């Protein structure tokens, strides 16, 4: 039993020395500290994709409703024209129909634009996903390097740890209570105006 404890102690010391020797202690610490950030980034992705889906479905519902109404009105006006073409024009049914179609078309176009704008989640979540992938890759590389260094001498070839590059911060995940981050376009405009732009 004493021998087992002694061997565990030696392994622990070896692991500690290897981490320090490789400079991995700090790197692993940094990576682990970034994990809660990764969690909030994934929550952000879930929220953004959920919001986008909601927006698209709402716009589709409204556009379809307008489309159904146009179809119904078209059938109705067609019946009126077949029945009495002169009366259909004279009583203003045709003109009312044309005005109605024009207004509905504009409204449908607005919904289509909203559907298009909702696709911006692809860009924003894509940037966030890239950061989370980068973090997991860093942790994986550090752990693999650690395994290689502490394993019995078979191969000592190591994979270089990916260089961290995040000079730019990407989408603001939790901008609340952070005075260095703007939360709306009006804040951007105010900031630029204060600089004379």
């Amino acid at each position: 039993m004493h021998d087992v404890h002694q061997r565990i102690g030696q392994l622990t010391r070896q692991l500690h020395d290897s981490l320090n020797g490789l400079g991995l202690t700090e790197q692993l610490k940094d990576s682990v500290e970034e994990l809660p950030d990764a969690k909030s980034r994934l929550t952000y992705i879930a929220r953004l994709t959920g919001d986008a889906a909601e927006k698209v479905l709402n716009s589709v519902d409204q556009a379809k409703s307008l489309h159904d109404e146009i179809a119904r009105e078209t059938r109705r006006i067609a019946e009126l024209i077949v029945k009495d073409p002169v009366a259909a024009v004279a009583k203003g049914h045709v003109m009312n129909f044309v005005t109605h179609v024009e207004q509905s078309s504009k409204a449908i176009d607005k919904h289509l634009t909203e559907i298009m704008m909702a696709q911006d989640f692809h860009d924003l979540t894509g940037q966030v996903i890239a950061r989370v992938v980068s973090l997991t890759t860093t942790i994986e590389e550090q752990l693999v390097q650690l395994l290689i260094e502490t394993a019995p001498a078979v191969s000592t070839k190591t994979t270089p740890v990916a260089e961290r590059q995040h000079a730019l911060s990407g989408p603001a995940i939790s901008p609340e209570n952070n005075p260095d981050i703007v939360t709306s376009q009006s804040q951007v405009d105010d900031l630029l105006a204060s600089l004379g732009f």
Partner: protein
Amino acid sequence: MATELRFLVVDDFSTMRRIVRNLLKESGYAEADEAEDGVIALGKLRASKFDFVVSDINMPNMNGFQLLAEIKKDEKLKHIPVLMVTAEARKEDIVAAAQQGAAGYIVKPFTKATLEDKLNNILVKTGLK
């Protein structure tokens, strides 16, 4: 209201390039090309005539700040207004963009009205409209 102005839309995400191009088209600016990073954008800007650049910041190879700097130090390109459309919401990035000569700054996600508003302001200010 169609005009002859030619736009270059720079963004590493094809979805966003498509959205911006569609919005420009809806605003009457159908003449637009696109580039997926600063290097490709700079090549296109030097190869043919563009009147306006709408650029993202966070891109591979050459980011929006580097592209802006290259445009502003090039005698033949420096007159072209550059509107930054980006997810970078830090005040220091906004200030840096303004100091480097960006004509405007829009934070993603944005609305059609915001893009039209900034575009019109810049076009009027630069005499392009």
